[in-house]
Structures are given as structure tokens and as C-alpha cells.
């Protein structure tokens, strides 16, 4: 129970602030949705007549289509690799002591603080030196590094809430370590693994700045294609594709919240 109860003046002010901030957060997605149905080719608010033509145009625009499939391929590879690498490392972090433990952890988490343009530039320079500039390998590698901290965190939180006695029971019944891992540990970690993978996939699919540096015409992902579009044209096709993006993201997050408990993943639940 919060002491800042609603009948007090500070409590009321706090509530007004909360409503204002929530309004601020949902205003842009709301406005872009309305603009997407505008029939006119000019980006103006409010629309005079409604139309679906920009959705058709966005869905058939070649760069968006190519960008979508490129982005999807990069996302599936990057988030799956990050899941395996991150889950294994989170397990080692939770259970073992080993040399360079803190060093490796700090380096991997530093991609949260190091600017994406710096990481992008670094991978661009390396790729150019080994003759792989703008190829898929470099794009996927950069994405793995960028999403790894989120997988690490998600799996680590699940491991902290893990009941070790279940593993000990399997061990005492004679199961070798590999069997314990595959039949007890991994199945119990599934919610953490799924939410980690989902967060990684959403972030990778949306990643822009580093991708701008490491992708080329052939490998450009959807956000890069969209950025190039905004710079060239001003029609509402961009609004239409943004709406599809927003809807897909909100749906995925709602799913994540209902089935996996977003609050637990983000660690904002009060401990019981």
C-alpha cells in the first residue's frame, strides 16, 4: 500500500503526472496510425478522407519487401545464436567460478553502454579488413553482440529462481550431468529462454544505427530501408508500415506479458 494515497494533494498531482506521461508515450503511435489512413499523398494532420492505399503501397514496395526478408533472416540467426551463447554463459555465471568470469561479463554487458554507431563503425572497419564488408556474417555478428545482454539477463533471472533440488534428485537417481541438463534443467528454464529469445528477436528486428553502418544495398534490413525511404519521400507509406510495426510489437509484448510475465523478466515485481 502506497502512503501517497490518492486523497492527498501530492497523491493527486502524482496521478496527473502519470496520466500525462502515459499520454506522451502513446501520442506518437496514435498519431501515426491516424496519418496512415490519410488518402492524400501529403504528410498532414488530420486526414480529410480515409484510405488503405498506403498500406497497399508499403506492402508492395520492393525495398520494404527485400528489407523485411533480410531483416527476418538476420533476426532469426542473431537471436537464436544469442540465445544459445547467452543461455550457456548465464548458466556458467550462475553456477561456476572461473577465470576471467567478471571480465567476460563486463565486456558483453558493455554493448548496452557503448553507442551503436561506435559498434557499427568498429565492425565495418574489421569487416573491410578481412574482406567481408556488408555481408550477412558481419550483420549477424553485430546483432548478436547487441542483443546478448538481454538474453543473459532474462536467463540469469530464471536461473536465480531455480529450484536446485530437482537437479539433485535426478543426480541422486543416477542421471549423468548431460542427462540432468537436457531432461531437467533446460525444460525448467523454457520460460526464461523463450522470453530472452523474444526480447532479442524484437530488438534485432528493430535495430537501426549499427545496421546502417554494416549493411549494404544487398543486405539492408527493414529499418534501414525505412530510413532511406523517409529521406527520399514524404508520402504516408512510411506511416502505414510503421502502423504494422507498432501493431506487431504491441501484440508480441502482450503475448510476452500474458504467458511469460514481463514484470518478472524486467524485475519490477515486488518479491513475495
Amino acid at each position, binding site marked *: 500500500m502506497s502512503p501517497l494515497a490518492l486523497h492527498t494533494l501530492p497523491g493527486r498531482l502524482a496521478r496527473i503526472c502519470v496520466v500525462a506521461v502515459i499520454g506522451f508515450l502513446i501520442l506518437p503511435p496514435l*498519431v501515426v496510425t491516424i496519418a496512415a489512413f490519410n488518402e492524400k499523398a501529403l504528410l498532414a494532420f488530420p486526414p480529410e478522407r480515409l484510405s488503405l492505399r498506403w498500406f497497399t503501397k508499403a506492402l508492395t514496395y520492393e525495398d520494404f519487401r527485400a528489407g523485411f526478408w533480410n531483416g527476418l533472416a538476420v533476426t532469426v540467426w542473431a537471436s537464436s545464436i544469442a540465445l544459445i551463447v547467452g543461455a550457456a554463459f548465464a548458466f556458467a555465471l550462475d553456477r561456476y567460478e572461473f577465470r576471467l568470469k567478471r571480465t*567476460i561479463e563486463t565486456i558483453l554487458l558493455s554493448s548496452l553502454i557503448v553507442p551503436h554507431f561506435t559498434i557499427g563503425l568498429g565492425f565495418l572497419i574489421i569487416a573491410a579488413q578481412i574482406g567481408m564488408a556488408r555481408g550477412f556474417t558481419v550483420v549477424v555478428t553485430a546483432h548478436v553482440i547487441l542483443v546478448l545482454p538481454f538474453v543473459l539477463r532474462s536467463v540469469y533471472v530464471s536461473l536465480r529462481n531455480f529450484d536446485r533440488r530437482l537437479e539433485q534428485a535426478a543426480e541422486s537417481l543416477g542421471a549423468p550431468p548431460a542427462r540432468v541438463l537436457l531432461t531437467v534443467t533446460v525444460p525448467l528454464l523454457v520460460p526464461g529462454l523463450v522470453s530472452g529469445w523474444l526480447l532479442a528477436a524484437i530488438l534485432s528486428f528493430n535495430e537501426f544505427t549499427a545496421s546502417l553502418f554494416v549493411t549494404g544495398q544487398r543486405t539492408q534490413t527493414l529499418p534501414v530501408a525505412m530510413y532511406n525511404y523517409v529521406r527520399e519521400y514524404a508520402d504516408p507509406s512510411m506511416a502505414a508500415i510503421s502502423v504494422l510495426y507498432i501493431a506487431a510489437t504491441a501484440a508480441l*509484448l502482450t503475448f510476452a506479458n500474458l504467458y511469460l510475465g514481463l514484470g518478472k523478466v524486467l524485475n519490477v515485481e515486488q518479491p513475495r
Partner: protein
Amino acid sequence: MTSRPFLGAFVAPAALCAVALVAALLAILQYSVRMHVPGSLEPGGFTLENFVALLKPLYARVFLDTAWICLLTAFATLLAGYPVAHALVHAKRPFVKGLILIIVVTPLFLGEVVRTYSWIIVLGNNGFINFVLWKLGLIASPIQLMFTTFGVVLALVHVTLPVMVVMLAAALAHIDPAYERAAASLGASPLRAFLTVTLPLSTPGILAGVTTAFAWTFSAFATPQLIGGGRVNMVSNLVYQLGFASFNFPFAAALSVAGLAMTFALLGLIRFGTRRFENVAQH
């Protein structure tokens, strides 16, 4: 525990990723002290010229502007995020809690391009804000919101808010409610209990939130590029311009190195300042 099954297999892939990240950063460090050969992508011999050039007013100005925008964004985010985090943690109905959480975190997952584009429609001369103000009869002609620092900061707060709220909420959720009850039972008003008990106890969350908001703002590219439109420039825009318009990768690398140094220096300063404040508060 002495037995560590599969240790190597669990750590090696992560170590490889760490090596890749370090290699990328070392590549930048290496390029930053090389000469730019116009017309060639290959850098020349070793030099410190790139760092000397950073002191030119043109570039120094961008660094100051960037630092200012980052600080402004970080503190605006803190002020806007705190009440929301408090409401999120103390919401009683799971539905309300879930709703606040989803609305708050969605911008985080929208990607910079979609978010920035949405803000263009909100801030533009034919955009939402100008339309509403004009309808209300408050303005006769559109007010300029695009290409201003205010517009850039507003759009940047939109993306730093989610992470700020999540970090503050994590800190608030782990404060034992018994402390506030104790303050109340000793006669403290709710406001006083909040200011003298809850707020100081949430300092770790405030620190983490401000630090991350600062670093993320520094990392932003599409927002200052599209909403700033060349009139509000941040280090990220300069790095891209130098790399892809002039192909001067050594200087772009030097800017990145200086940017990293500035981020870490300012973050250290924020931490130092907060510690001083805490010490004062304890006396």
C-alpha cells in the same frame, strides 16, 4: 562445488563474442591514430592529427551540444519516469499494472526509425501539435518544433523513458514497505515519508536510470538526424557524415573514441556527484 561439467562449452562461445566486441573497439582505436588518405579507404601512417582536429570550434561545439542534449534528456526522463515507476509498482490491480507496463515498454521495442517518424508527424508544421493549437485558436501560424533542440529532446525522452521506468520500478519494488509504514507511524506525512525514506532508498535505481538514459541518448542517431535536420547535430551524426559522405574513417574513429571517453567521463561525474550528495544527506 568442484565439479564443473561443460564449463568450456558454456563459456567459449561467450568469450568468442567478447573477443569480437573488443576487436571492433580496438579497430576503432587503431584507425583513430591513422592518417586519412583522400580518395582511399585505406588509412595512412600513424598520427595524432585527428585528435588535434577535434579541438576546432566546429567539432568542439558538437560535443558540447551533445553533452547538453544528453544531460537534458536524462533529467527530463527522470522527472517524467519517477511518478510512473511509483504507480507501476504500487498498482493494485494486475490489469492496470500490465497495461502501464506494456504502454511504457512498447517505445523501447519500436526501433528508432518508426519512433522518430511518428514524432515528425507530431511535431511537423502540418503536424498534430500545430493542428491542435491552431484549432484551439492559440496560434495563427505554425510554431517551429522540428529542427529544434526542444523537438529532439522530446523525441529522445520517449525512448529513454521505458528503461528509466523499468530501472526505477526495479529499485522501488525492492524497498521494504515496512520502512514507509514506520515513518508514518512516527507521524510523518505521506509526502515527508516519501521524501525522507522512499526517495533516498531508490537512489540506486535513479543512478542506473540516469546513467543508461544518458548513454542511450548519446547513442541516438536517427532522431537527431531526422528531427534535428542538420540544425541540431550530435556526435553520432558527425561520425556518420564523416564515414559515409567524406569516407574519412580515421577521423570518424577519432570522434567515436572521444565520444566514448566523454560518455565515461560524464557518467563518472554523475556517480561522483551523487555520492557527494548522499554523504551530505547522511550528516
